[in-house]
């Protein structure tokens, strides 16, 4: 690993991804171990994200570690105007690893530079959320038996969705084909398409679901957020185009799995939930094993 801390998905190489996946599988078989006995993990949530925090805390608890921290900035010294640097340096004195979520972009990189214990980025604004990407990789690997040569559909807000950008970068090591389905103004940004061109990776863009979905190995759904639309009428027009319904999965590949970073709003109809191809709840559970693997790897356990 280039860095002890995990701030950006690019901090890890292809080899590192595969090591994390292998370790996550090991923790899935034996989720309760005492390897964090005597260790203190700080979870600093400068903005609330209950889902992510519970996943980390579950991972730490199962490994016998102790947790200190705060769940939103209002209950911390940040409110008294303390600098990020001082908060991090103080907490680093009391912990073996810091998990942090912060609305300011680049805050995790900065924290990793001023901290003398490793920092795991649990989301820094619209920038990076690498543990989400690693759990996505683990979910894909687990359901497909490989990461190589897969056809991956990404659906919804592909412009602002940091999870799809990071997943695209990570999957680019494994010779994928991409299909992007989004409204015109939420298309995959040019910089990512240029990147795919430079690597010789094939991708196709669509404005709605079509028969092509029959070729998919993975359908990765994201929220199309109302706030992104300047015109509410425009939102009403497109919002139903990007809803996945159970009948649309007829005739799709046996191995197809539907993923979603959660929470969903209405972009996956509840009638998909009982389809064996729906995988988003298991995906969330995979997050616990993946985070166990990340923490254990960083602490050399």
């Amino acid at each position, binding site marked *: 690993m280039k860095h002890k801390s995990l701030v950006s998905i690019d901090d890890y190489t292809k080899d590192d991804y595969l090591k994390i996946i292998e370790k996550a599988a090991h923790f899935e078989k034996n989720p309760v171990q005492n390897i964090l006995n005597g260790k203190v993990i700080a979870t600093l949530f400068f903005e609330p994200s209950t889902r992510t925090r519970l996943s980390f805390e579950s991972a730490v608890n199962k490994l016998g570690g102790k947790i200190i921290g705060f769940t939103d900035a209002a209950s911390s010294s940040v409110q008294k105007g303390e600098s990020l640097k001082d908060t991090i340096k103080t907490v680093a004195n009391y912990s073996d690893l810091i998990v942090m979520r912060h609305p300011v972009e680049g805050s995790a*990189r900065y924290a990793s530079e001023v901290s003398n214990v490793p920092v795991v980025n649990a989301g820094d604004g619209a920038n990076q959320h690498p543990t989400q990407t690693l759990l996505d990789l683990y979910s894909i690997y687990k359901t497909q038996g490989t990461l190589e040569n897969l056809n991956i559909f990404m659906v919804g807000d592909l412009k602002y969705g940091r999870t799809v950008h990071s997943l695209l970068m990570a999957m680019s090591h494994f010779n994928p084909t991409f299909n992007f389905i989004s409204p015109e103004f939420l298309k995959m940004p040019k910089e990512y398409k240029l990147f795919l061109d430079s690597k010789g990776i094939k991708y196709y863009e669509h404005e709605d679901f079509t028969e092509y979905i029959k070729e998919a190995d993975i359908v990765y759904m994201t929220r199309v957020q109302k706030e992104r639309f300047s015109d509410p009428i425009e939102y009403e027009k497109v919002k139903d185009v990007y809803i996945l319904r159970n009948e649309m999965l007829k005739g799709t590949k046996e191995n197809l799995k539907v993923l979603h970073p959660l929470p969903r709003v209405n972009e996956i109809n509840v009638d998909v939930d009982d389809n064996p191809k729906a995988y988003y709840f298991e995906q969330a559970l995979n997050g616990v094993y993946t985070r166990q693997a990340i923490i254990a790897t960083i602490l050399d356990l």
Partner: protein
Amino acid sequence: MNSDKKELRVNAIKNGTVIDHIPAQDLFKVIKILGLQNITNTMTLGNNLESKTHGHKGIIKISELFFEDDDINRIALAAPNAKLNIIKDYVVVEKRQVQVPDKVVGIAKCVNPKCVTNFEDNITTKFTVVDKENIALKCHYCEKITNKENLRLQ
């Protein structure tokens, strides 16, 4: 005669550095980047001079001051076509061209208002230059791109 005039300007200092071909609108940026406002050397500034190749240009002549490559390359963000003449005993002994560096540390401001460098005091900005021709800087912290058009100095 034109060439005589030029010679006169360039040779007007005994020992030192002449920075020529600075875009007129960026002269003061260059001064700031090099920190020339803080030094006591004899200095002559010219601006809005006619240039055969670049419209209007600025020029800086500083006595008894010689720059390291790193310092020179810092001005590349504001004046990528700048040329340096190193003067010893009234003679141009060396000509140097500015090179856009691979990394930019502590000069530029990140354009992203949500970037940590715009929130927390005392962070030195760091960028990787991802496009040397059009000047595009990728922030080491927030990973967003700052272009020449929205470039501000820290």
